[in-house]
């Protein structure tokens, strides 16, 4: 049986699945921690339904010495609490995979999978019910088995359980440890003996940070000086509220859970004009509700950061599934015309950097700055190197103090300037009183309908989109810059595209990839990238090719632009992309030759 033991040196992907409430995600989190502590790179994702208990739910964790940024293509180890979990991962299963199956309701039908797949049948539920009475501890038993299989020493696993449950009520920790020991016993019975605790893999390595995009963007916002958050719970944006709520008490910040998104965005507008860096985070239905407030930020020139954690729409849609289908409403949504920036982090590091930068941009240009995430990048966990806290700066734009004002003969909140940005004050500033309004107004903020003033004010606001070009985040080209085959993709397609490029390279197809960070105003660099490509693949998690539409409108139709789209609520896999590219190329060459 030793043959199926895996070592952590490999690129390995483990799926743990069952019914919601089975604790699958806890097992993947524990494994992610173990891998990470060994200096491995980890990428982990979850797949749940919009219900609290029951229904299929699974977590996947992948670990590698390589710098992986996506799930990859194959699952090597499966822990399945029911048959549904096996079926859910069947298509992605490595031929030499191992399945640890909860056989309480009967052994796994071996015909369900290739006969090269190794199956351990262990009746976790039965064992745990018999010994501890509460089924929910079965996941710690399974953790013992999969940990042994992966070659983790028992001591190391025990330590993770301790640090996870140590702070909880004593019986919780105890029962988990009991369950874990039952697991160890059954692992032993199945020939999975304890690994040597002095195994070479346990050498001291530089600790990595394990973060989701939501954590990274929240942390970026904190470091970027945000001190006010208002929100209303919604998947997958709620995390941002919860992280800031955890951190703000030490930083003099306030998190307010509002009665709805309309209240949230208006609270944030109020806090922003009172001088606090302010942010809201929402998704799907909440996003549609804040369009009016977004326009108010644009018209009244109030600095506001908006995090949109895109999920699968339309309407209530698929609340726990990924999509990148808000791009056009972020760019065009809301009545009338007003300036805004739309930023699209692709990596966890991007999330941090953009989270930190956005509050500067908002105050420097006095408009809504939108950070467009997607459920994949929001929730998936990735190991990253330490973040450089010192490279940032705080820039409050043209904020006036009482001393600045004393030198000015006249102060109007909306005074005309070359760059469209007016100096501003915050309340309590001696002699800095303003009128702020979303009605059309003159330089002092008085409502005004004069034709000439109107045109000047519209131009003042829109010119900010140009003035800001020097400060907006710029994307990166990855891969073989000399190649004529280009990818474009944002958000969580980033890691998948990189890996697909590796697969293509193995097929002799070299390629490059532009990951834009600013899609409004759309980066000019995309134009040059397109010019340097004979064929371009725009990879998007939506039905209509929204990013590709934005690109086409600005840069014209590329002679060979192909959309690779997925909108079934699930993340792309690398092989899916590389194969689509190969198919398209084959078809094209069939046409040409």
């Amino acid at each position, binding site marked *: 049986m030793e043959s199926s033991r895996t070592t952590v040196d490999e690129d390995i992907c483990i799926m743990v699945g069952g019914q919601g409430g089975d604790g699958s995600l806890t097992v993947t989190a524990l494994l992610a921690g173990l891998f990470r502590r060994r200096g491995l790179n980890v990428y982990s994702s979850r797949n749940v339904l919009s219900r609290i208990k029951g229904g299929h739910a699974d977590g996947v964790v992948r670990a590698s010495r390589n710098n992986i940024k996506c799930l990859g293509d194959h699952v090597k180890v499966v822990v399945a609490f029911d048959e549904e979990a096996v079926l859910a991962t069947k298509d992605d299963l490595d031929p030499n995979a191992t399945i640890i199956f909860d056989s309480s309701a009967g052994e796994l039908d071996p015909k369900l999978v290739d006969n090269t797949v190794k199956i351990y049948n262990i009746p976790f539920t039965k064992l745990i019910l018999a010994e501890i009475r509460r089924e929910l501890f079965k996941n710690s038993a399974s953790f013992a088995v999969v940990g042994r299989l992966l070659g983790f020493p028992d001591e190391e696993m025990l330590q993770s359980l301790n640090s996870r449950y140590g702070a909880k009520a004593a019986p919780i920790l105890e029962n988990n440890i009991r369950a874990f020991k039952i697991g160890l016993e059954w692992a032993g019975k199945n020939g999975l003996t304890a690994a040597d605790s002095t195994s070479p893999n346990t050498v001291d390595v530089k600790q990595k940070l394990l973060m989701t995009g939501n954590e990274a963007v929240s942390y970026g916002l904190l470091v970027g000086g945000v001190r006010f958050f208002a929100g209303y719970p919604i998947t997958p944006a709620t995390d941002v509220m919860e992280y800031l709520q955890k951190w703000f008490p030490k930083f003099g910040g306030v998190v307010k859970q509002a009665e709805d998104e309309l209240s949230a965005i208006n*609270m944030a507008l109020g806090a922003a004009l*009172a001088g*606090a860096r302010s942010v809201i985070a929402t998704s799907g239905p909440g996003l549609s509700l804040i369009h009016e407030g977004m326009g108010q930020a644009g018209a009244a020139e109030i600095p506001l950061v908006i995090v949109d954690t895109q999920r699968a729409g339309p309407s209530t849609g698929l609340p726990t599934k990924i999509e990148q289908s808000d791009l056009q409403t972020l760019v065009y949504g809301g009545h009338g015309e007003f300036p805004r920036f739309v930023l699209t982090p692709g990596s966890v590091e991007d999330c941090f950097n953009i989270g930190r930068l956005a509050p500067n941009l908002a105050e420097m240009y006095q408009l809504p700055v939108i950070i467009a995430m997607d459920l994949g990048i929001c929730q998936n966990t990735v190991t990253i190197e330490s973040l450089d806290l010192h490279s*940032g700066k*705080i820039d409050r734009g043209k904020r006036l103090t009482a001393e600045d004002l004393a030198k000015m003969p006249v102060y*109007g909140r909306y005074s005309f300037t070359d760059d469209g940005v007016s100096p501003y004050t915050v309340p309590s500033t001696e002699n*800095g009183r*303003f009128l*702020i309004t979303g009605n059309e107004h003159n330089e002092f903020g008085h409502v005004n309908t004069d034709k000439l003033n109107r045109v000047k004010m519209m131009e003042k606001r829109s010119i900010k989109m140009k003035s800001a070009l020097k400060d907006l985040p710029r994307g990166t080209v990855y891969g073989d810059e000399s190649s004529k085959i280009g990818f474009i993709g944002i958000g969580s397609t980033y890691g998948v595209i990189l890996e697909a490029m590796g697969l293509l390279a193995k097929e002799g197809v070299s390629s490059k990839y532009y990951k834009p960070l600013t899609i409004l105003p759309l980066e000019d660099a995309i134009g040059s990238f397109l010019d340097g490509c004979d064929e371009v693949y725009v990879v998007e998690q939506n039905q209509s090719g929204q990013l590709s539409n934005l690109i086409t409108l600005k840069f014209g139709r590329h002679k060979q632009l192909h959309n690779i789209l997925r909108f079934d609520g699930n993340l792309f896999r690398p092989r899916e992309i590389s194969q689509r590219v190969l198919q398209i190329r084959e078809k094209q060459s069939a046409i040409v030759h």
Partner: protein
Amino acid sequence: MTQVFEPAKPIWCAGCGDFGVQASLQKALSETGTNLNDVVIVAGIGCSGTIQNNIPTYGYHSLHGRTLPSAIGVKLANPKLTVIAAGGDGDGYAIGMGHLIHTFKRNPSILYIIMNNETYGLTKGQYSPTSNPGFEGNVENGMDGILVGLGVPSTTFLARGFAGAPAQLTRLLTDGLTHVQSGKGFAFVEVLSPCVTYNDTYKLWKNITYDVDSDTNFNPRDKIGSYTTVINKREEGKIPIGLIYSADHPSLEQVSVDDQEKGPALQDISLASNMDRYEAVMKTFLG
């Protein structure tokens, strides 16, 4: 001295009740000795929602119905400010109703002046939530903002004034300002403010208002008594004015803002002064 915006000439029709509201508010601000540089007036959209243009304080013309959330944002960002929200009955009782209840519930120290003319003035006289049945085709019973306030456990200050009774109105607004400036929570002052163009109710209201302030048997600190009075007076076809209810409850900013000295807006957010704490947060991701 730097020239800032000049207060505007009101855009109201001659005789509009809102003139009286503005005059009383300005008196109340001066009676409380409030520094106008520390005042933010957050106004709604409507005829009433232009009051901030006419007064030399900080002014924010928010969105229709979003007056209170905006004001709460200002207050939480900088609790030392005197925050006044002002708007119409459409703004506050129709589109803004959800926020109103939640503001009663939260009890932020904000003075809210709702200029009730029982119509939508700026959109030309449709019925509003306070309109009587029959007005402009209205089929619903009118609602009562004070009664709504009595339906929320943490309400602390409920008053109603009348633009036609300026002395009392000034007193109520002064008391409301004092309530919020001493951090006691949300001061709700509905003002009966006739719309002479679409719903001229001056005479009617002169006749049917009932002044609880001059009723010596009335005790505004007795919740059930207040409720009883409001219900009974309504049944008699009367509208109670005066200080109708007052109570004590911790204010929102008190329970939400950790650093009572410096709200979020006043925090030092420079990297240098926060670096240690930022690093401590980063460590938590090392697992």
